[in-house]
């Protein structure tokens, strides 16, 4: 599903954020990216979404070399990739329903699809009672559920999560991880960058550890350290 071939990323005039990375992630895998701040986790994720271009090497997503992708095709790549952030990135002037619906609306989905899919996904994340609330009225955990709902409402093949529990307390984090696990069980490939030792050690999934841009460990059913 995801393949990195000798990928190096150097931001202008800086030390490499990623050096000669070779990774192969299969469909349906759940992968943790761990490592200190600045080790290259975020770069790894941003490369998959084509938010950044590799300085060297090739990246394949769903069998396609995304380096060879025309600019106008990038949106179609992103429709297959859900993205969850540490800071949620919800629109404060839209309700929960509207926030999720927005993701379908702007890729041209007809309104009857929106009307049936949004309530279904909000039920999945357990927010049926909050559809008309605004993000400011929700707890951090609830906001992150909305953001997961938005990322997953289009049923993407891949879900990228950049420190999704970074702003949440441990108990709330467990809830979010249960949700991501459930999404992973539907066959969606999940790649998650995290600092959360407890989560990694509990879930026991594949762990890729980065240190100063090098992949120093790639272990199935791994732990944080």
């Amino acid at each position, binding site marked *: 599903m995801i393949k990195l071939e000798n990928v190096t990323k150097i931001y202008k005039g800086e030390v490499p954020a990623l050096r000669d990375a070779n990774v192969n992630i299969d469909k349906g895998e759940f992968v943790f990216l761990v490592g200190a701040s600045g080790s290259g986790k975020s770069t790894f994720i941003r490369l998959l979404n084509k938010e950044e271009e590799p300085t060297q090497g090739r990246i394949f997503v769903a069998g396609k070399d995304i380096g060879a992708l025309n600019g*106008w095709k990038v*949106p179609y*790549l992103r*429709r297959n990739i859900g993205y969850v952030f540490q800071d949620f*990135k919800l629109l404060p002037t839209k309700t929960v329903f509207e926030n999720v619906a927005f*993701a379908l609306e*702007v890729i*041209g989905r007809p309104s009857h699809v929106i009307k049936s899919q949004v309530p279904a996904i909000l039920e999945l994340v357990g927010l049926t009672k909050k559809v008309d609330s605004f993000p400011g009225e929700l707890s951090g955990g609830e906001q992150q559920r909305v953001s997961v709902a938005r990322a997953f409402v289009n049923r993407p093949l891949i879900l990228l999560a950049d420190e999704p529990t970074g702003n949440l307390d441990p108990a709330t984090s467990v809830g979010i991880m249960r949700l991501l696990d459930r999404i992973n069980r539907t066959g969606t490939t999940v790649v998650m960058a995290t600092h959360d030792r407890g989560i990694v050690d509990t879930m026991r999934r594949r762990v890729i550890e980065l240190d100063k841009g090098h992949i120093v460990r790639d272990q199935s059913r791994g732990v944080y350290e």
Partner: protein
Amino acid sequence: MAMNIRYVARETGTNLRRNFSLTLASVVTVAVSLTLFGAALVFAQGVGNMTARWKGGIEFIVFMQPSATQEQLDSVQRALEDNPEVTQVSYVDKPAAYEEFKQLFARSKDMVEAVDENAMPPSFRVAPATSDADVIQALGQAFQKKAGVREVVFAFETVRTMQRITRIASIVIVGVAVFLLVAAVLLILNTIRMAMFARRREIEVMKLVGATNWFIRVPFMIEGLVHGIVGAAVAIVGVQGLNWAFDRGLSNNRDLKIFQGFVISGSQMSFTTLLLVGLGCLIGALGSGIAVSRFLDV
């Protein structure tokens, strides 16, 4: 592409409302610049119509009697063409003279209806080699006595002054209008930029969930286009109003006979209207186009 019209209308509407003061500034600038532009054009057209006979260095016109014979016509023509002081002679026959008459007196329908083609005097338009008024005067007078000649009419000093002033005024007005048009483009550009800044979160989310570039751009482009078109509409009303006021104030004034011929034809007005709409669209598209391509990094 499945572009939801309701979505575009809603987004554009929100942008226009949210940025009301800047939107107003853009629209007013477009309107003022296009009004100046249109007014200059209409004025130039009016003066052009009024002085159509005197274009291309023509200094005097030899009007023949409507009853002049072919021999008399030939003789005057030969005399003009053989004269070394004359660089150009053009003959205006009866039908052409009638057409001109109709345009010149478009305002006085009864006058046009009172005469027919046969009553029109054919004429020779003469462009002399010199610009010396005395020489031209003498040259023209020489034909006054010829058989079949009704009268020799010289370009009024007023006509010349009129043409000169119009030319200078048009250049100045169009110059100012062009500056204002540039200002309008920049204002639209900044208004759109503000709108994009106000919606940066939405734009970020749109990019991440895979909205196409055009889907993101179109509402902003249409916003700019709306500025241009609304501005042009105001300008059209302004130009029509100016034309109307001019019509009432000057053209019907019996003391200012020269403005009798100052009539804008319907087709000239439609041309001006279309031009203003076109320019409005162009300004809007240009401003928003630059904003979208420069500041919307998709």
